[in-house]
C-alpha cells in the first residue's frame, strides 16, 4: 500500500480539474505518486483507493458517500470564506457560481469583486438586511394581503414579500422543482440568489436537512467533472475519478462502486472493457438498428447476381426475375437462366461455370454481413449467458447451502463456489465486449494475439461454466479443480485486458481507421446499396 495516498497535502487537488491522470502511470509496476491528484483528505471511504501494483487496465478512483461530499463542501466553504472575507453563506453561493473552481473564483474575485458578486447574485444594496419584520402600509405583491401586522421578508435586493408567500415559494422550489443551489428572489427579473441564512429563517429544518442538502450535494457532483453518481438503482455513492473525456480513446476507466456495481466512468454504462466508449456507442447503435434484420436477411435472402439487390424467394419456382434489373437467374445455382436450356425448373447444373462464378460473387458480398453476424452472435451469446449467470449465482447459493449439509463442509469451505460464480460473470462481461471490440479491429499480428487471448479466456470460461452443471454431491470432490479453473479464468482475463489496455494507451492499437469502420458498418447492410 502506498502510504502517500492518505497524505494531507493533497486535499486541494480534489478541486483541480486540470490535474492529469498520467497515462504513463498505467504500468502494473509503475511507482505511483499518491500526491499527484484526486485525494480527498479526511474521508473514511479509503477502502477503494488504489491497490498496489495497479494493472494497465485499472484506473485510480475513490468512492464517496453523500455525507463525505457534504463535509468536503463545508470544509471548502470555510476555507474560501476566510480568504475572501465573505460570510460562509455568500461564499457557498460564490463557489457554486464558480462551479467549485476555487482558484479561478479567488482570482476573479480579487480582480473584479463587484462584477463577480453581481453575476453570482450577491450584489450589495446598502441599507437592507435580510431579516423578518413588519412594515407599515405594506401590501404583498404575491398574495395582495395588506394586514397591519403582516410579517414580511426581503433579501438585500429589497424585494419584499410576506413571509407566508416567501416560505411557500421556497418550499415549492425545493420540493417540487428540485432546485437548491440557484434559487432566485421571487421578484421579476431579480438575479439575487437565496442564501442559506435566509433559508434558515424561512424553510423548516426538516426540509433543509433532507431535500435541500441532498439537492445541494447533487448539484455539487453534477458540477464537477471528476465526480459521477453511481448509476445503479438506489445507490447513493459518488465516484471520484480523474480520467478526462479526451483520454477516453485510450483508456477504458472501469470503476467499482461500494454498492458492488462496476461501471465505466466515461459513459456510465456497465463495465465494457476492453472496448473504448466510442466503439461501445457505435456498436450498440449498430446492433440496435439491425441485428435481427441482418440475421433474417442472412437466412432468407440472396442477392441478384447482376445488380446485388437483396431478394427473398417467398414461393414459386427457381426461375427468378430480378424486379430491379430484370436479370433472370436460377435460385438454386445462381446461374443465368437461359443456360438452363431444356432442363427448366429442375436445376442440376451445379458444376457449370456461370453458376459457380455467380456463387463466388454472392459469397463475397455476403462476407461483410457474415462478419458482422459472427461478432454479433458471439457478443449476444455472452450477454445471454451473463444473464443466465445471475440465475447461476442464485443456484450457487442454494448449492452452497446443501453442500454444507450433505458434505459437512463449513461455510468458509464452500466459498469457492461463490468466487467461481463471480469470476464467471466478470469474464463473460469482458468476453462479450471483446467481440464488439474485435469487429472494429484490423487484421494484423496484434489481432492474432488478441484473438488467442480471447480464445484462451473463452475456453477457460466454458470449462468452468460446465462444472456448475454437475450435481451437488460431485462438487465437493471438484473443489480443488474448480478453484484452479477460477483462478485460471481470472488470470486469462487479466492477461487479455492488460494486453489490450497497453496497446490502446500506447496508441499502437490495431483499431481500424474511422473511414474503414464506416465502410465496414455500411457494407454489412446489403439493403443500403
Amino acid at each position, binding site marked *: 500500500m502506498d502510504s502517500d495516498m492518505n497524505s494531507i497535502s493533497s486535499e486541494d487537488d480534489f478541486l483541480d480539474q486540470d490535474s492529469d491522470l498520467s497515462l504513463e502511470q498505467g504500468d502494473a509496476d509503475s511507482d505511483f505518486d499518491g500526491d499527484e491528484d484526486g485525494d480527498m483528505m479526511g474521508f473514511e471511504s479509503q477502502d477503494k483507493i488504489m491497490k498496489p501494483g495497479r494493472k494497465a487496465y485499472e484506473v485510480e478512483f475513490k468512492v464517496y458517500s453523500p455525507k463525505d461530499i457534504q463535509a468536503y463542501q463545508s470544509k471548502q466553504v470555510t476555507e474560501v470564506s476566510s480568504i475572501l472575507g465573505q460570510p460562509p453563506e455568500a461564499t457557498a453561493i460564490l463557489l457554486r457560481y464558480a462551479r467549485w473552481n476555487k482558484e479561478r473564483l479567488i482570482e476573479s474575485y480579487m480582480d473584479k469583486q463587484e462584477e463577480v458578486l453581481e453575476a453570482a447574485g450577491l450584489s450589495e444594496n446598502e441599507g437592507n438586511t435580510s431579516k423578518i419584520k413588519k412594515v407599515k402600509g405594506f401590501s404583498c*405583491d*404575491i*398574495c*395582495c*394581503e395588506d394586514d397591519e401586522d403582516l410579517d414580511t421578508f426581503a433579501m438585500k435586493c429589497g424585494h419584499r*414579500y410576506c413571509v*407566508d*408567500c416567501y416560505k*411557500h*415559494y421556497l418550499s*415549492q422550489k425545493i420540493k417540487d*422543482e428540485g432546485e437548491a443551489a440557484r434559487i432566485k428572489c*421571487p*421578484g*421579476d*427579473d*431579480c438575479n439575487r440568489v437565496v442564501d442559506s441564512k435566509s433559508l434558515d429563517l424561512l424553510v423548516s429544518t426538516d426540509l433543509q436537512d433532507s431535500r435541500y442538502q441532498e439537492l445541494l450535494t447533487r448539484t455539487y457532483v453534477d458540477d464537477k467533472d471528476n465526480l459521477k453518481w453511481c448509476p445503479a438503482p438506489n445507490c447513493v455513492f459518488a465516484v471520484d475519478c480523474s480520467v478526462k473525456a479526451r483520454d477516453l480513446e485510450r483508456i477504458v476507466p472501469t470503476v467499482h462502486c461500494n454498492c458492488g456495481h462496476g461501471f465505466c466512468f466515461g459513459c456510465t454504462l456497465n463495465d465494457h472493457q476492453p472496448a473504448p466508449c466510442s466503439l461501445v456507442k457505435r456498436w450498440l447503435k449498430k446492433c440496435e438498428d439491425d441485428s435481427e434484420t441482418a440475421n433474417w436477411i442472412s437466412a432468407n435472402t440472396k442477392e441478384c447476381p447482376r445488380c446485388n439487390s437483396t431478394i427473398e424467394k417467398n414461393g414459386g419456382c427457381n426461375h427468378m426475375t430480378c424486379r430491379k434489373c430484370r436479370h433472370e437467374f436460377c435460385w438454386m445455382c445462381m446461374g443465368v437462366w437461359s443456360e438452363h436450356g431444356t432442363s427448366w425448373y429442375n436445376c442440376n447444373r451445379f458444376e457449370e461455370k456461370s453458376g459457380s462464378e455467380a456463387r463466388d460473387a454472392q459469397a463475397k458480398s455476403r462476407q461483410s454481413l457474415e462478419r458482422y453476424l459472427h461478432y454479433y452472435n458471439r457478443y449476444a451469446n455472452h450477454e445471454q449467458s451473463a444473464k443466465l449467470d445471475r440465475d447461476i449465482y442464485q443456484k450457487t447459493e442454494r448449492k452452497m447451502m446443501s453442500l454444507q449439509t450433505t458434505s459437512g463442509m463449513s461455510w468458509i469451505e464452500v466459498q469457492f463456489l461463490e468466487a467461481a460464480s463471480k469470476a464467471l460473470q466478470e469474464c463473460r462481461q469482458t468476453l462479450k465486449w471483446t467481440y464488439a471490440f474485435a469487429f472494429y479491429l484490423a487484421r494484423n499480428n496484434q489481432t492474432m494475439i488478441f484473438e488467442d487471448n480471447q480464445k484462451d479466456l473463452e475456453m477457460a470460461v466454458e470449462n468452468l461454466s460446465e462444472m456448475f452443471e454437475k450435481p451437488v454431491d460431485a462438487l465437493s470432490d471438484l473443489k480443488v479443480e474448480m478453484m484452479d479453473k477460477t483462478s485460471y479464468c481470472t488470470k486469462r482475463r487479466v492477461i487479455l485486458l492488460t494486453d489490450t489496455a497497453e496497446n490502446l494507451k500506447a496508441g499502437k492499437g490495431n483499431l481500424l481507421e474511422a473511414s474503414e469502420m464506416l465502410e465496414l458498418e455500411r457494407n454489412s447492410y446489403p439493403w443500403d446499396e
Partner: protein
Amino acid sequence: MAAARRLGKELQKMQNHMPDGISVVSADNFEIWFIDIKVLDDNPIYRDQTFRLKFHFSPHYPIEAPEVTFVITPTTPKIPMHPHIYSNGIICLDLLDRQGWSPVHNVESIAMSLQSMLTGNEKDERPPGDEDFCRRNTLRPRDINFSFHDNTV
C-alpha cells in the same frame, strides 16, 4: 386558499380598469379564466382579429405559473400566427416557464406580454417543427422543456 384570494383581488382590479385590447371573457371560478386580446396597431398579421387565451390556475398560483394557451372558439376562430406559438395554441414564452416565472406576475401582466409579443412580430409563420410537435405532443405545456433561444421576437 391563497390562489383564490389573490385571483379575487386581481379580478376586482381588472373589473375597475383594463388595458386597451384586453378583456375578461369569463372568470367564474378560480381555476379557469378566458381572456380576449387584440393587437392595437395595424400589424397586417393580426389586423381586425381577436384571440382567446385560456388561463388554467393550479392551487399553487401565483407561486406556480398558470398554464396559458390560445384556444379556438366560434367568435375567435384563429390561433395567432407567430414563430413562438404552435398551431395547437401552445405558447413558447419564458415568462410562462418555471425559470422565467415570478409570482409577481399576474393575469394582466401575462396578457400584456402576449399582446406585445404579437404587436412586435413581423413573421407570419409557425415555429419550426410545428406540424410534428402538434401531432406528437402529449405533454401539458408546463411539462415541456422549451429552450428559449430566440430573444428577437
